[in-house]
């Protein structure tokens, strides 16, 4: 007989006992492996979602708010699959307005989209046909053949907030028939954003989208399938790009000049700076002024005129050259001082009145350059106006001021500038964030189209105009792979069930070992070295572990299936997607298998070692070892230290700290738990000093508890842990609504959080505008500019790198919301004002601390990197972390910094609405009605916050549910120990019977013993849990009720007592035991 034979024989002989231990191992394997499989599956599902939403797209080239030639897609070399797309937003309406979906993504595509979709599903889409995504069809309850009305956001080539741009149309309506419904396999989930939730999509012909916008042949995104990297793709893009892609238009003027102007009205600095270097380049800035009049003479003023520029060497800073018509009108002469009154653009199209004085240097006849109508920029709403009263200039035009002679001038000369000032002065007065010049002229002899294109391709890089190649596929897959770690999460959430399973395995194994005590002693006596004994038992333990782990691996799949069915239903709040696949990697099964085996073999070896430390003679004689004095002393010391620390932490937090940190309380609770358990352990090892009058049932019970300290302690640990976790989890749910009216709460005391599909271009607080738009009164709005990005809230499982940015006016937010963390740059007195600081090459930013920590995986002081609209890297330094708020998912920066980086950003699409709570309904309905076609989506602020909290609460529910499973395991542990102990104590019971104890008395003694352990465990767990959740319990805003806690405790106690009574009764009625008793 060899060692292996010995081990196999032992394994077979103790098969039933081994099977029980293996079951414990199986449960822990199921929890560990299940957790790992869940993590893999979520990652795999997110990866699949990335494939579903991108199709074959690997990269996207775009620039914030810019439109370029659709044709460039065909011109790009390098064997790429490129499809132009026009991506916009819309509100979809069905059933005559009964059904409505906001934030619908419009995707204008052409035949080349096949390359991305991988099928011809999108080919042959007619002008009034659309393909909609399945979720939109479900939302609107429509199907193929139905008709839908879309209110598509009206995009313009000119940024909406640029000076003199009409804000007339914000959207255009479009009715179309549904040709098909796109499922996820047909790119129905198409989105360039990293999120597992699918957007509502409508696919329409790109030509039709262009028509709706009044464009021709434009796109705003190139969808690319390529193996090349971003810089290579941008290089190819640059090689193909033409001035028209930067919205430049070239023409020859009547003066044999070659002129470049921009469809965006103002030419960006990145272009003008470079083209200005061409020899002979004449930089022109033509501006629309409200009036020109003689200084001091209030009588005659020439209204609404264009003023252009001349080179600096022609005019001094205060000089002006006027044309003859103006001189006549004003009766102005050389040397007269003229006053130019004009508007400049403030935030949210706020017009600021300004004026400047100039001395007339010369009066020019209406000829040549001074009669050149092409100097007037191409302003939609003005350039094409027949009469002055048709002007749509984006500024208030007082038609009363327009005289017949002004109409005649317009009829004759159109926008011929009436006056000229120096370039440098014009630049100083009217240059704005959209650009510095309205046109650039060159000598037609030396500069032409070919030279422009060559110069353009060589000197102007797409990135300088905000173009960037986004590796969407790589970024998506990285975000999926680094997203919320569900492996850790579920192993963490299953902590108690795992702990209970491991403790149960140890317990069962120790019980099994106890039955083999004498065997260990015999082997020791026979000369087996400890290492040999250990190896025999360890290998046998390995056999048990392998069986348990194999069984557990199967159970893990069932466990995963159960969790996934819950995630698809009850717990959907934490995943928010229906694309969930169970993905089992053999490597994961193996990993879970190995981890479980390592853990179980580890604990088995520990148990064997523990027994081997006892001397062979004692093992033979079943003498249990007394705890060494220094060990007892050490434990006592630790217990006192932890107890002291927990009291200290709680006292400090309650008495001295301004902000009570929930984490500190939880730590204090944990320390208290360990401390009390150690004290109880010490009690089990204490030597009772018998006093005669104290010899009673209670004394007997106490002594019996010490009969097998390990078992007694295990029961206490199990129930202490169960109580601690269940009570502390139950006590952590917070009531969002009771605190919502407070300024410092997560709602900031605002009534509504609003998102609009179409940006609102004006100031909602402007009384004049309110009157014009018919808005209700009684509210105050805080408006935010927005740069689109990924959703970084806890509703998105992906690891986000570029969350959406909000531009805010810090003044409006001061005093609202609470900060939980801040860097040294955060001014604690006026934290929001810190957003206006100039920190050099970084921009201060604030976000929810939960977003920073979990959504972004960063910390305060870290930096987020974006490419801004002007091609630079925008570095956002996180200087403040907010307590959970309605800003989840966004990063907030100051308006000033926002506009520096995104100058063409127009309007607001995120709002906070404040007002009288009683007027809530009126305000909501009034605004909702007015902005119906903007895709106005108002959510009550507490409701929005509650949605985020629903994630936390779902996690707590999962924890409770898995904790309950753990409690069941704990109860099984109790049952096993109880049955075993009663069997082992048959001699003692026989003796008690012999000396006259009645059965009921024996029953009482045993029930008392185990009830004491149960009570001790629950008491320890409860005390620690109360300490851990003290802030929640003490808070007036909590819904933690004493009844809830008592109910939980009552359930745990009843469950424990029921099993104790039932098992004791059953065991005492056991026929074998009675037979034993009789024999004894």
């Amino acid at each position: 007989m060899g060692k292996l034979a010995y081990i196999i024989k032992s394994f077979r002989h103790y098969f039933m006992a081994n099977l029980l231990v293996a079951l414990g191992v199986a449960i822990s394997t199921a929890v560990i492996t299940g957790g790992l499989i869940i993590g893999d599956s979520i990652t795999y599902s997110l990866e699949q979602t990335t494939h579903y939403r991108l199709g074959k797209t690997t990269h996207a080239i775009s620039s914030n708010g810019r439109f370029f030639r659709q044709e460039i897609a065909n011109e790009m070399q390098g064997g790429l699959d490129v499809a132009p797309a026009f991506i916009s937003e819309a509100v979809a309406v069905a059933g005559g307005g009964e059904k409505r979906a906001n934030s619908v993504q419009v995707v204008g595509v052409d035949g080349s989209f096949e390359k991305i979709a991988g099928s011809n599903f999108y080919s042959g889409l007619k002008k009034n046909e659309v393909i909609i995504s399945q979720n939109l069809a479900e939302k609107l309850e429509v199907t193929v053949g139905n008709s839908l009305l879309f209110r598509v956001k009206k995009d313009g080539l000119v940024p909406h907030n640029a000076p003199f741009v009409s804000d007339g149309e914000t959207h255009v309506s479009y009715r179309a028939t549904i040709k098909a419904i796109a499922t996820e396999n047909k790119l129905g989930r198409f989105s360039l954003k990293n999120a597992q939730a699918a957007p509502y999509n409508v696919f329409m012909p790109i030509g039709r989208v262009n028509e709706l916008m009044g464009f021709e042949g434009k796109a705003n995104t190139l969808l690319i399938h390529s193996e090349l990297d971003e810089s290579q793709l941008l290089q190819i893009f640059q090689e193909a790009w033409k001035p028209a892609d930067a919205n430049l238009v070239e023409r020859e003027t009547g003066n044999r000049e070659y002129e470049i102007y921009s469809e965006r009205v103002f030419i960006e600095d990145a272009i003008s700076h470079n083209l200005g270097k061409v020899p002979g380049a004449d930089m022109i800035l033509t501006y629309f002024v409200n009036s020109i009049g003689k200084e001091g003479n209030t009588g005659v003023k020439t209204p609404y005129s264009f003023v252009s520029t001349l080179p600096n060497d022609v005019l001094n800073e205060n000089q002006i050259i006027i044309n003859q018509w103006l001189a006549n009108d004003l009766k102005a002469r050389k040397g007269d001082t003229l006053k130019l009154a004009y508007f400049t653009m403030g935030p949210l199209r706020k017009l600021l009145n300004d004026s400047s004085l100039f001395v007339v240097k010369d009066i020019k006849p209406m000829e040549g350059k001074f009669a050149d109508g092409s100097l007037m920029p191409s302003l939609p709403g003005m350039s094409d106006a027949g009469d002055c009263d048709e002007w749509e200039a984006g500024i208030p035009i007082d038609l009363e001021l327009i005289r017949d002679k002004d109409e005649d001038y317009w009829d004759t000369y159109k926008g011929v500038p009436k006056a000229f000032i120096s370039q440098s002065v014009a630049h100083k007065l009217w240059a704005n964030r959209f650009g510095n010049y309205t046109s650039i002229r060159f000598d037609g002899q030396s500069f032409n189209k070919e030279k422009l294109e060559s110069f353009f391709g060589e000197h102007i890089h797409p990135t300088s105009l905000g173009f960037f190649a986004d590796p969407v596929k790589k970024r998506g897959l990285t975000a999926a792979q680094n997203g919320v770690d569900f492996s850790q999460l579920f192993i963490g959430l299953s902590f108690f069930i795992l702990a209970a399973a491991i403790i149960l395995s140890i317990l069962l194994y120790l019980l099994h070992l106890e039955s083999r005590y004498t065997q260990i002693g015999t082997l020791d006596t026979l000369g087996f070295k400890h290492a040999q004994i250990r190896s025999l038992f360890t290998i046998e333990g390995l056999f048990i572990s392998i069986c348990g782990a194999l069984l557990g691996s199967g159970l893990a799949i069932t466990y995963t299936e159960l969790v996934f069915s819950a995630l698809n239903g009850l717990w959907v709040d934490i995943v928010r997607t229906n694309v969930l696949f169970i993905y089992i990697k053999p490597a994961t099964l193996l990993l879970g298998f190995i981890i479980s085996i390592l853990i179980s073999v580890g604990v088995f070896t520990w148990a064997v070692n523990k027994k081997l430390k006892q001397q062979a003679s004692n093992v033979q004689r079943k003498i249990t070892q007394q705890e060494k004095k220094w060990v007892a002393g050490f434990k006592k010391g630790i217990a006192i230290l932890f107890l002291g620390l927990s009291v200290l932490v709680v006292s400090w937090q309650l008495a001295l700290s301004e902000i009570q940190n929930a984490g500190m309380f939880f730590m204090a609770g944990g320390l208290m738990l360990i401390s009390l358990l150690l004290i109880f352990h010490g009690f089990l090892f204490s030597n009772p000093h018998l006093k005669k009058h104290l010899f009673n049932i209670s004394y007997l019970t106490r002594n019996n508890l010490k009969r097998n300290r390990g078992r007694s302690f295990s029961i206490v640990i199990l129930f202490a842990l169960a109580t601690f976790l269940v009570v502390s989890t139950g006590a952590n749910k917070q009531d969002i609504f009771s605190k919502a009216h407070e300024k410092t709460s997560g709602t900031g005391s605002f009534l509504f959080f609003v998102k609009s599909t179409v940006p609102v271009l004006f100031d909602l607080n402007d009384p004049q505008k309110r009157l014009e738009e018919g808005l209700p009164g009684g509210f105050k709005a805080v408006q935010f500019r927005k740069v689109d990005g990924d959703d970084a809230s806890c509703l998105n499982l992906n690891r986000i790198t570029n969350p959406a940015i909000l531009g805010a006016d810090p003044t409006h937010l001061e005093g609202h919301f609470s900060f939980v963390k801040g860097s040294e740059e955060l001014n604690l007195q006026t934290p929001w004002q810190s957003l206006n600081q100039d920190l050099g090459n970084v921009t201060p930013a604030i976000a929810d601390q939960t977003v920073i920590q979990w959504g972004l995986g960063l910390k305060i002081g870290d930096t987020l990197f974006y490419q801004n609209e002007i091609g630079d890297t925008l570095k956002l330094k996180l200087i403040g972390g907010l307590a959970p708020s309605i800003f989840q998912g966004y990063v907030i920066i100051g308006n000033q910094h926002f506009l520096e980086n995104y100058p063409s950003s127009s309007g607001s699409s995120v709002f906070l609405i404040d007002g009288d709570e009683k007027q809530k309904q009126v305000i909501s309905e009034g605004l909702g009605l007015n902005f119906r076609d903007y895709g106005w989506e108002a959510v009550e602020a507490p409701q929005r916050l509650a949605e985020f909290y629903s994630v936390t609460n779902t996690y707590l529910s999962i924890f409770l549910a898995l904790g309950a499973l753990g409690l069941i395991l704990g109860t099984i542990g109790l049952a096993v120990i109880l049955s075993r102990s009663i069997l082992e104590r048959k001699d003692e019971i026989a003796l008690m019977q012999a000396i006259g104890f009645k059965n009921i008395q024996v029953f009482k003694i045993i029930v008392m013993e185990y009830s004491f352990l149960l009570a001790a465990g629950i008491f320890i767990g409860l005390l620690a849990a109360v300490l851990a959740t003290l802030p929640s319990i003490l808070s007036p805003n909590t819904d933690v009720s004493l009844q809830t806690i008592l109910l939980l405790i009552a359930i745990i106690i009843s469950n424990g007592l029921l099993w104790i009574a039932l098992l004791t009764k059953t065991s005492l009625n056991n026929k074998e035991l009675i037979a034993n008793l009789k024999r004894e």
Partner: protein
Amino acid sequence: MLQLKNIVKSYGVPGTSSHHIVLDGLSFQIGNGEKVAVIGPSGSGKTTFLNMAGALDIPDKGKILFEGILLAGYTKNEMAEFRNKQLGFIFQMHHLLPQLTLLENVLLPLLPSGKNRQKENLEWAEHLLQASGIWKQRNQKPSELSGGECQRTAVVRSLVNKPRLILADEPTGALDEENAGKISELLLNLNAENNSSLIVVTHSQPLASHMDKLYTLQGGKLIAG
């Protein structure tokens, strides 16, 4: 061969009522092939004495020498090796492993030294089983046999390694008179065949009478006769 010099062993905490001295300056020696019986009332320390002699316990004071070598100098592993090679143990209870057959139980002491596959050892084990009259039952498990048969197996097991010294703690204590006689006979016969030394702690007068020397353990010391 084995010498115990001035052995002191006590239990409990010194200075408290729980403290009591079991062996108090006990000295003893046994030569090659010698057979010694130790008797004494319950609680006199017979088992403690045997544990000391068998290197299963450590004395508070005194020296234990085997062939002139101090056992206290051995490491745990050396001590285990010593027990395996030089000593054979028989207890009042047989302590056979329930998962093994009789033959396997007998072969068990060969396992630590890896001698379990050596032909001569297997033949020796078979011989012992035959000599003890339990050859037929060799493939049965302890649970299928009587107490006497199990105790015989325990005797055989103690001899399988051909030890120099056998230590028997009440080997017949749990058996009826008939079986006790058989076991005593077996123990003496096999011991004679193996030429081992033998220390028997016993209450059994018949067994004690077959020994070369008889000691009584009293007051923590061994008294001859």
